[in-house]
């Protein structure tokens, strides 16, 4: 083509590509979901809350209703808008904005480990005064739920729900093969053998995300050694080379070797494994009670055929089946740079009110943390069943990664993942012990 035409063509192409590059659009999770509904008046102060729920899931819908309530209040001069960042990116984004001194005014976080880190770095406000000024509010909470949010005698956050980890199973499959729900580890192995021989995956477990495998190993360790070994770890004078931890590693390898986990489980992520269970390809799943809400929201045809049971006990173990892997799974905190701490506090208090706590149970299937009259007719059946099981509880222990916070908590999860990939438990826990000593 002639020189001129070529020049024009190149110029046009350059301009087009520059324009396209510039019009990237903002997909940053900065979802302007228009949750700011302030009625007829416009308010002066505008606050932001970060949430890790999926937009549109049962919990998010309840959150939006509470937001509506809060934003409609005429006595407060602040509106609150929520930004949702589900999944792994939440941690990264939250820490990045905190480091840039641009923290959201209210955000959700795990208790214990990470909350302590925020507290020591002065990133969140103490609610000690708020609780002291309103003892009735503190009384509303069930005993012990505030323990993991209390540091140096002061409470730093408000739990909204508590989760208990249990064994969920597909009643249909169990009936079909005439199986009983396993109550001991031996029975679990026997059931798995039968299921595997019929081509059903016994336990839906995908270890691509390390924390999933840790659910089972933590239960095993507790059933074998009781609460003490991990309690000592938390206090700073424990050891990861305690026999109960090493044994739990061997349990994981044993289950993997007998085919209790899906084929290629090392590459299976959370949505993959829950899909497996929801589709009836797997008979059991060990998961926190938040799973009830997800199950109800899914289109699984087995929704009404799922049962729940306590995680099996280990004969000759120091622990028993009434020790529950539980922790407050959704905790709201107020940033130390919040624009209107009083209003933020009012928002947090809303969550503990009886009508909303009841809705936490009835609508999302998560467990309430404050005294409320849950209408047992409205709650999901699974919630009712799990609630009855939990009533027997003698003990609670928390997720190791929540208790320890990063990086030790994550190191535990990856150690379990490495054990599943073939590493010797003594080695994996030995390395973990080295890291633990380094950080203490």
């Amino acid at each position, binding site marked *: 083509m002639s020189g001129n035409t070529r020049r024009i063509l190149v110029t046009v192409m350059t301009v087009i590509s520059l324009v396209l590059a510039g019009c990237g659009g903002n997909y940053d999770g900065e979802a302007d979901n228009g949750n700011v509904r302030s009625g007829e008046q416009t308010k002066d102060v505008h606050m932001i809350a970060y949430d890790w729920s999926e937009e549109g899931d049962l919990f998010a819908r309840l959150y939006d209703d509470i937001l509506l309530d809060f934003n409609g209040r005429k006595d407060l001069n602040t509106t609150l808008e929520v930004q949702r960042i589900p999944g792994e990116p939440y941690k990264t984004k939250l*820490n990045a904005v*905190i480091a840039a001194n641009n923290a959201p005014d209210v955000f959700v976080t795990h208790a214990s480990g990470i909350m302590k*880190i925020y507290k020591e*770095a002065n990133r969140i406000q103490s609610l000690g005064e708020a609780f002291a000024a309103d003892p009735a509010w503190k009384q509303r909470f069930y005993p012990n739920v505030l323990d993991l949010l209390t540091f140096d005698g002061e409470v730093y956050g408000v739990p909204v729900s508590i989760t208990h980890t249990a064994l969920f199973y597909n009643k249909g499959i169990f009936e079909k093969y005439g199986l009983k729900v396993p109550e001991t580890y031996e029975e679990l192995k026997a059931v798995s053998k039968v299921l595997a021989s019929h081509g059903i995956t016994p336990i839906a477990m995908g270890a691509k995300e390390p924390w999933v495998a840790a659910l089972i190993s933590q239960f095993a360790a507790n059933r074998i050694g009781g609460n003490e070994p991990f309690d000592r770890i938390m206090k700073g004078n424990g050891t990861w080379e305690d026999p109960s931890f090493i044994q739990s590693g061997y349990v994981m390898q044993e289950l993997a070797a007998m085919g209790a986990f899906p*084929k*290629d489980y090392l*590459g299976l992520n959370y949505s993959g494994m829950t899909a497996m269970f929801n589709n009836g390809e797997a008979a059991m799943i060990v998961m926190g009670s938040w799973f009830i809400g997800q199950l109800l929201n899914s289109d699984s045809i087995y929704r009404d055929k799922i049962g729940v049971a306590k995680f099996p006990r280990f004969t000759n173990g120091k622990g028993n089946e009434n020790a529950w892997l539980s922790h407050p799974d959704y905790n709201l905190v107020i940033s130390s740079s919040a624009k209107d701490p009083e209003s933020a506090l009012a928002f947090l208090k809303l969550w503990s009110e009886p009508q909303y706590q009841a809705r936490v149970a009835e609508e999302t299937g998560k467990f309430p943390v404050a005294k409320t009259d849950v209408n047992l007719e409205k709650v999901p059946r699974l919630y009712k069943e799990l609630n009855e099981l939990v009533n027997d509880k003698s003990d609670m222990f928390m997720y190791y990664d929540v208790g320890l916070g990063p*990086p030790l908590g994550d*190191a535990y999860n990856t150690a379990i993942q490495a054990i599943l*990939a073939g590493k010797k438990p003594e080695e994996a826990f030995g390395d973990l012990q080295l890291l633990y000593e380094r950080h203490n």
Partner: protein
Amino acid sequence: MDKMLRDRKTILFLLTPSLLLYTLLQIFPIGSAVYYSFFEWDIISTQKFIGLGNYIRMFTEDELFWLCVKNMLFLTIVGLVLQQMTGFILAVILTGKIAAKNVFRNVFFMPAVISSAAVGLMWSFIYQPEIGLLNQIISFLGFEDLTHAWLVEKETVMWAIAFVASWQFIGYSMVLFIAAILNISQDVFEAAELDGAVSWKLVRYIIFPLVKPIFKVNSILIVIGSLKFFDLIYVMTGGGPANASQVLASYIYTRSFTQFEYGYGNALSVILLIMCLLFTFISNKLSKDTNE
């Protein structure tokens, strides 16, 4: 115009914007990475100075680090062999008497133009154990027991990734070889044919020696590229299964952004930088030695 461009002040003036940008975007972050590598920091709390602590941990306690280095070396060697060999063979064929040579050259070069993330995603689907193309083809040909979960089994994962990496960049090697072959003057070919050289002899005794410099150039490019790999690995396996396919770049990402050990991540970055510089230096030395 010429005189103006030679004037020192003009040169400085014209260079300043780029120099400024370069300092801001490269020198400053590198300096800050070196600085923070001596701290323990999770970006929310205050930093804790620990001197060489991160480096000691890296070399004595962290076996994942050595796994990363091993994987990087693996990728580099496989890349060197696969890319160069295939690139050379393709170049020889595509400078011969084939119809639609240009079309084929473009087609083979195209993967290099696609973003690595897209390439990674595409090959993840091909490698998928149940419905992926690769296993389907293998089963179809009757070799059912040769099917694998390519990206999940730790024996196959690095080979799978190395293959995709080479596949993407064969185009570069090929193009360089083609240019070199086309540079060989026709007289040489005519003389050889007069002497009765058959085609494969042509390749072995004429083409191959004359494109040796290109092997060196390609080696440098491949080595540097392989050391910095991130997107393919992150997209295809995220470093899994259970960290079997981690390389330094993805490991830095995991340590820093997922486990909030930014100080340690910085230390790893500094080591990666040193590795790249070292390899560049060695490659340059080797190629200078044997150049005219």
